[in-house]
C-alpha cells in the first residue's frame, strides 16, 4: 500500500513537467534556448574602388569555421592564408559595375599611383582586414586632380583604423591624407 502511494505521488509530480515539454512542442517551438553568445564567424573585408567615380566598396566574405576551430574573444579564427581567388572575387564586385574593368583597384595604392592608376599598383593584402585581428577597416586619401589616392589599414576602433590609414597614406604618398573613412569588418547582424 505504501509503495503504491509513493508511486502515485511520483506520477503526480512528473505530470506537470511532462506537460510543459509537450506544450513547448505544441506551440511549434522546440524546447531550445537560443545561444546568444555564439561567436561570430571569420569575416575578411576588402576595400576596392572605381577610379573614375572614387566609389569605394567594402566587400565582406564570411568563412565557415572548421569544426575544430575554437573562438577567442567571441570571434572565430580566420584562416592564416587567404587564397588569391577570394581577393580576385573582391575586386570583381567593382569590375561587374565598372564601365571598364581596368578602372577597379584595391584601396591601398602604391606611391606614384596617380601617374599609373591600375590594379597592379595597388596592394590587395593591405586592403583587407580579418575580424579575428581587427574590428575596423580604415582608409585615408588625398586628392590628385579628381582622383582619390589612398592608403588602407586595420584597427580596433574606427578612430584607430583611420589613424593607421592616415599614417600609412602620408608615409607612402608624402601628402596629407585628409579624406578618411572607416567601416566595421563584421557585417551588421
Amino acid at each position, binding site marked *: 500500500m505504501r509503495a503504491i502511494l509513493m508511486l502515485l505521488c511520483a506520477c503526480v509530480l512528473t505530470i506537470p513537467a511532462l506537460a510543459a515539454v509537450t506544450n513547448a512542442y505544441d506551440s511549434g517551438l522546440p524546447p531550445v534556448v537560443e545561444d546568444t553568445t555564439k561567436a561570430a564567424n571569420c569575416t575578411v573585408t576588402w576595400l576596392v574602388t572605381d577610379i573614375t567615380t572614387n566609389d569605394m566598396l567594402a566587400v565582406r566574405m564570411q568563412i565557415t569555421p572548421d569544426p575544430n576551430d575554437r573562438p577567442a574573444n567571441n570571434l572565430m579564427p580566420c584562416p592564416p592564408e587567404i587564397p588569391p581567388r577570394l581577393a580576385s572575387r573582391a575586386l570583381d564586385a567593382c569590375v561587374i559595375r565598372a*564601365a571598364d574593368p581596368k578602372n577597379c583597384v584595391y584601396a591601398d595604392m602604391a606611391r606614384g599611383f596617380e601617374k599609373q592608376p591600375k590594379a597592379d599598383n595597388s596592394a590587395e593584402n593591405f586592403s583587407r582586414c580579418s575580424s579575428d585581428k581587427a574590428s575596423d577597416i580604415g582608409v585615408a586619401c588625398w586628392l590628385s586632380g579628381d582622383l582619390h589616392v589612398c592608403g588602407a589599414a586595420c584597427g580596433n576602433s574606427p578612430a584607430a583604423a583611420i589613424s593607421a590609414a592616415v599614417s600609412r597614406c602620408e608615409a607612402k604618398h608624402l601628402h596629407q591624407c585628409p579624406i578618411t573613412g572607416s567601416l566595421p569588418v563584421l557585417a551588421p547582424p
Partner: protein
Amino acid sequence: MRTECRLLLAACLLTSAGVPAATPALAETKRIFALPPTQWDNAMSTERPARIFGPSDLSNLTGGIVFGLSPAGVNERLPTPAPGVEWGDLPFANEYPGDVRYFWVRFDAIRDAGNAPADCVGASSYVVFLFRNRALFRVSWRLLPDKDCPSPRAAAEDIYGRYLAIDRSVSLATHYRAGKAEAVEITDPNADDLMPYRWANRQRR
C-alpha cells in the same frame, strides 16, 4: 665643418620631403559602400550570398516596381501614372542592341515615392524605365546639375548606396558619370548581356 653643414642640409631636405604640414588640408569623410556579405565554405572553394534576397527587397525600395513588369505595370505603380503608356507606343532606346524601348518621368514626379534622397538634384533630372520583350530590365536615374544644384553627386551616392544593399542576384547597381551628370542604374541580372550599355549624355554642360 663643411661636412656637418652638408649633413644638416641633407637632413633638412629629407624632412621637408615628408608630409607638408604648413597648411592643413580640409578634412572630408569618405563614404564607403557596404555590399551584402558572401558566405564561403571552410575550404574557401565555393560561395553563396550570406543572406537571401528576393524581389520584395527591391520592391520595398522602388515603391513596388520590380524587374519583369510591363510598361503599363510600371506606370500604374508611379505616384502619378501617365495616360497611355503601352509597349507599342514607346520610343526605341537606340543605344541598345535589339528592340529596347523606354519611357521616362521627371525625377521630381517620383521624388516623394518611397526613398528619395535628401540631397539636391538639378530640376531637369529624370528617371528612365527600359524594357526588352515588354519587360522592365533597367531603371536609370539621370541626375543633372543646374545653378541651384551644381553637383548632384551626393544624391547619386545616396541612391547608389541604397541599391547596393541588395544582393546582385536580385539587382545590380551601377554608378557612373556622364559629363557633369551622374547616372545610377539598377539592372536585372537576367539581362546581363545589356549590362555594358550605358547612357551617353549629349548634354555635356
